[in-house]
């Protein structure tokens, strides 16, 4: 197995028992056409756990999801390990990956309408998934499973929906169809890449409720990618924060909200907070987002960090365990007393 780079080889201890994890991403590195885009991404997801992956635009959330799925574009070089259910996905063959996709691992995307074929009835697309993995299932039975799932994801008149084209459905309905499609072969892990960003808040709330119910009822593990901390904190028990191609923080949601250990998620939290009393303290983050292709020296967040010291610039901080039981990538995590929102 090829390892790209030598950074981030620091020893790390997992808060939980590693073997119990369904998905384990370990020091994942990714370069496309020689441009490094992910460096040192590590997190895990236990069975039935809903993990949030947040970070600003371009921080590499989608690429992380695609790496797990093995759907990276040509020219991508992966390093590190992705262990899913005991299989290393980095070294898995294309055939192996294809067998896993849809059956054990599924992914849904941000633009629900664009992510379904415009000229194929959505039911057919669901049937396609069933037939691809279980060729023996007769078409009628596959359709029945489709109907069942559409009902489960809360679509009214699922039978009619099965014959509908995407342009006849609203964005929320398309997203539900896509979720149904992703679940039709009962995968263990669902990676949801910003499933609600394109939707209206009321519809967004429906989808979030749906995902939570599926996780609760089916024991489905979910990795929820979002840049909206509100959505993530609503749904996830644990939040992994990425910045510029790295995981910078990984903590239980309650801990994160109560007392973030890293300045970046702390700033994000305050930026997404709506408190009428504190509305006019313009909590933003100074500077511009970092580009993973040309990262700053040392701690990648330091140019925008109000708490930076010389040490921050010197070397890339390792991902270290925190007092709260999470992991963080900040040399000052122990000394800083950052404010949460739920204080």
């Amino acid at each position: 197995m090829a390892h790209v780079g030598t950074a981030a080889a620091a020893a790390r201890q997992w808060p939980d028992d590693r073997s119990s994890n369904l998905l384990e991403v370990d020091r994942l590195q990714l370069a496309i056409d020689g441009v490094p885009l992910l460096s040192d991404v590590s997190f895990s997801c236990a069975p039935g756990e809903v993990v949030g992956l947040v970070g600003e635009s371009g921080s590499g959330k989608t690429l992380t999801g695609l790496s797990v799925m093995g759907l990276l574009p040509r020219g991508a070089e992966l390093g590190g390990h992705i262990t899913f259910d005991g299989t290393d996905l980095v070294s898995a063959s294309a055939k192996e990956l294809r067998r896993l996709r849809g059956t054990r691992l599924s992914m849904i995307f941000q633009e629900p309408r664009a992510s379904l074929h415009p000229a194929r009835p959505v039911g057919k697309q669901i049937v396609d998934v069933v037939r691809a993995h279980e060729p023996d299932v007769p078409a009628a039975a596959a359709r029945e499973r489709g109907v069942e799932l559409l009902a489960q994801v809360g679509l009214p008149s699922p039978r009619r929906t099965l014959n509908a084209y995407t342009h006849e459905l609203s964005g929320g309905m398309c997203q539900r169809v896509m979720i149904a499609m992703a679940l039709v072969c009962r995968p263990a892990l669902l990676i949801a890449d910003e499933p609600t960003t394109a939707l209206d808040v009321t519809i967004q709330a429906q989808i979030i409720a749906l995902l939570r119910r599926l996780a609760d009822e089916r024991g489905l593990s979910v990795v929820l990618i979002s840049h909206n901390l509100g959505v993530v904190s609503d749904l996830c028990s644990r939040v992994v924060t990425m910045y510029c191609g790295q995981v910078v923080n990984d903590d239980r949601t309650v801990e994160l909200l109560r007392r973030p250990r890293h300045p970046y998620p702390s700033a994000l939290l305050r930026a997404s907070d709506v408190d009428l009393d504190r509305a006019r303290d313009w909590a933003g983050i100074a500077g511009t987002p970092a580009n993973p292709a040309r990262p700053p020296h040392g701690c990648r967040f330091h140019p925008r960090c109000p708490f930076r010291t010389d040490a921050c610039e010197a070397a890339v901080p390792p991902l270290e365990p925190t007092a709260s039981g999470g992991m963080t990538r900040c040399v000052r995590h122990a000394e800083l007393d950052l404010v949460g929102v739920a204080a």
Partner: protein
Amino acid sequence: MTTTVADPAAKRGGTARPTKRARPHPGLVVAVTVLGALLLAALLAPWVAPYDPLAQDLVNRNGGLSAAHLLGTDQFGRDVLSRLIWGGRNAFGGVLIAVGVTLVVGVTWGTVAGFWPRFTGTALMRLADIMIAFPTMVLAVAITGSLGPGLTTSMVAIGLVLAPNTAQLTRSGVLALRERQFVQSARLSGVPAPIVLVRHVLPLALRPVVVQLTIYTGLAFVIQGVLSFLGLGVAKPTPSWGSDLSDAYSQILSAPLQIIAPGVLLGVVVLCVYRIGDALRDRMSSGAVRTERTEDDVIVA
């Protein structure tokens, strides 16, 4: 005659990755060099061409390649190389006329139609639809057949035939841009409509038109050849690639290799022009303004 086609890369939704954008377009340098050399040769024909393109040597008719005549002589004993060099003037000049006509007529047409979209625009676009309904070649032949053969008429005919496509493209650009927010911002700032048109709309609306016109340049070379081949092109004895090719074809029995030089030359020029068109399209599509895929991308003559 030939169909030209949108470059696929242009239509892809995403922005080009920086690494790819930086790469020079393959073959572009070659294409520009070749075209530039041919153009230069044509411009400098009096000094470059070894012979007078009209000088006949009736003793040495259909002479093969020789040191004196690098590409041989034609049916009237004229030096083929000199004719091709001089022919470049008519070929380039003619194509310039054709593309110029297309540009002026098509852009005016499309701008007017896009700017007064209701009645005038509908009427004008109806006319364009009708003209586009004629197969390009048929219309070109009909117009040239009507006006009588000759360089100018045939080239004006080509220009006119291609103009409605340009009009459509211009109009769709103008229409799309009219609704663009920066145009609205300009109008909110009190900029009068004609100035908005000139300052904001046309420069962008014309970008795809420029690409289209490059493609049409290639097309015009081909149609010029076809019309000459049908006897509707440049009057003899004026040298022009198309009519030289058709002259060569008339000698195909006695001198079958004569068609190669003008034929290959025509093909090379068209290839170079298309290559440049490809490159231009890639360049332009990386900019912010992209119009939707329309039928104009495929122009079939």
